[in-house]
């Protein structure tokens, strides 16, 4: 029986000629990731293990991104704990204020994740690196600790759902609309325990930033991972960012899938997920009149150059609607600089938005944009659960950067066509 792309990567890392869905395996890890929230718990666990240090000082990445620059004393204590651990074990990929970015934007940019890798991270959006043709998945802190200690993790080999993407998306339709459409179609547990394998001619029209956004939100459908085949776009990205060797895996012709969907990208419309689940999707034509108080453009889902460019192109020469607070967060220092050099930061500030240092802050209601009772936010982030961005009676509407930027101008949820 043939293997899916995910199964082939897992088999190779488990030293097995083949694996099949449901099989329990132990796989070698190419990278173990943690952030300032999950790493302190992992460090506490690894200190209980009878091990000498970490398995490989270059194959661990610790990124201080959720509550930094530290929002309070307790978060400062957490970062201090991770900083001391990184120093003690000479972790080469430790990223603190000044070098840090939002982890899932930072690691591909730094060339630490490439095709064919097996990566675990104590952050659910670790599935992002599937965009590069890697197997990557989110785990908890104890798995992270075991990964740091042993360089291995156990997995139950997943079955897969195939998404055949065909056609070319229309002008304002981005990767975010593709993944929101899919989550709306299959639900927040539609891919529970499974791989989401994206294939098809439509992928050629998706930039690397679009693919990173799509793979990033595989977890919002319950997926174990989301993965794209490697093409010229992927190879060019990896050659630009990484010196590491990469391995291209392709699914067997006779690979078995639990389900198969064909999605014609040319028929998609800008899509918005209403509170309080990412599956509550409506097209922009169906949203009605929803007034907003805040807009967030950023996060591991949509804080990359493509996202800032399209937002700025919509906001250029216009003013943010009165009463709306607009927070733009470039995901890494490099993106921040590139956006500055392209004049995007000036565009945002002149429009009345603020631009922040990289942080996950508002996405999870940490800081830098926490909402009060009854407030509404259009956000390019990934979750709109009850209380996600603040008060339990606040509301989050998930959308693309284009919709977020247009909404910032009109003060209600709007498609870009409304302001362009």
């Amino acid at each position, binding site marked *: 029986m043939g293997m899916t792309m995910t199964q082939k990567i897992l088999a190779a890392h488990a030293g097995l000629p083949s694996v099949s869905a449901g099989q329990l395996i132990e796989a070698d890890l190419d990278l173990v990731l943690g952030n300032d*929230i999950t790493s302190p718990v992992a460090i506490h666990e690894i200190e209980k293990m009878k*091990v000498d240090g970490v398995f490989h000082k270059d194959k661990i990445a610790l990124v201080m991104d959720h509550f930094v620059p530290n929002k309070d004393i307790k978060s400062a204590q957490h970062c201090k704990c991770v900083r001391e651990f990184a120093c003690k074990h000479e972790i080469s990929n430790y990223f603190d204020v000044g070098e840090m970015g939002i982890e899932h934007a930072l690691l591909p940019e730094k060339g630490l994740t490439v095709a064919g890798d097996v990566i675990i*991270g104590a952050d*659910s959006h670790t599935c992002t690196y599937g965009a590069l043709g890697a197997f990557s998945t*989110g*785990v908890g802190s104890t798995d992270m600790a075991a990964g740091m200690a042993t360089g291995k993790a156990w997995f139950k080999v997943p079955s897969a759902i195939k998404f055949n993407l065909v056609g070319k998306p229309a002008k304002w339709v981005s990767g975010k609309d593709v993944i929101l459409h899919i989550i709306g179609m299959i639900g927040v547990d539609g891919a529970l325990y499974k791989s989401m394998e994206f294939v098809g001619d439509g992928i050629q029209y998706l930039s690397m930033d679009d693919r990173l956004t799509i793979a990033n939100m595989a*977890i919002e459908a319950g997926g174990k991972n989301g993965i794209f085949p490697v093409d010229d776009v992927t190879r060019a990205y990896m050659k630009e960012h990484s010196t590491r060797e990469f391995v291209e895996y392709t699914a067997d012709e006779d690979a078995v899938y639990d389900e198969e969907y064909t999605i014609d990208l040319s028929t998609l419309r800008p899509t918005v997920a209403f509170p309080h689940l990412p599956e509550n999707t409506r097209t922009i034509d169906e949203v009605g009149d929803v007034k907003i108080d805040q807009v967030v453009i950023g996060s591991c889902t949509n804080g990359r150059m493509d996202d800032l460019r399209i937002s700025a192109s919509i906001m250029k020469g216009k003013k943010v609607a009165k009463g709306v607070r607009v927070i733009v967060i470039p995901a890494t220092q490099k993106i921040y600089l590139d956006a500055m050099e392209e004049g995007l930061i000036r565009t945002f500030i002149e429009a009345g938005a603020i631009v922040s240092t990289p942080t996950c802050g508002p996405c999870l*209601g940490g800081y830098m944009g926490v909402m009060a009772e009854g407030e509404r936010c259009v956000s390019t982030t990934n979750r709109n659960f009850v209380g*996600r961005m603040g008060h339990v009676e606040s509301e989050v509407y998930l959308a693309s950067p284009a919709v977020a930027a247009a909404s910032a101008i009109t003060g209600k949820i709007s498609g870009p066509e409304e302001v362009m």
Partner: protein
Amino acid sequence: MKAAHGRVFKYGDNVDTDVIIPARYLNSSDPKELATHCMEDIDKDFVKNVTEGDIMVANKNFGCGSSREHAPISIKASGISCVIAETFARIFYRNAINIGLPIIECPEAAVAINAGDEVEVDFDSGIITDITTGQKFQGQAFPPFMQKIIDCEGLVNYINQK
């Protein structure tokens, strides 16, 4: 493994880790402190009413969302002895096993058991008994590999024994 026995707190579909332990409390990793905010955003009274040994029952996709291990840690530290659900989100499932919070998948029990029922879970057989209604359900037993981790009371001890 000792059977769980307690009163039931019942929840619906897609209970996410943001409501189990909101991110505003993630500047702490102390189990006792986390437990004081467990379930706060969907059930303000949970912390007041829960007693040692109580059982949590929910429907589909329990623990979806963030990978924060603080979620199962806060549930365990609040005194909950077992979570029964139709299905669990996969990261929560791993985390619960890794930290030694007993969980069990059983769609029939998840639907039939009511809030406040007295329930017993025998982990060796996977049998869930609703003492209040007299109904019995067969929950899904763990694969042997996971059973070993649970027997070691978590992944850390399992690795230390290997």
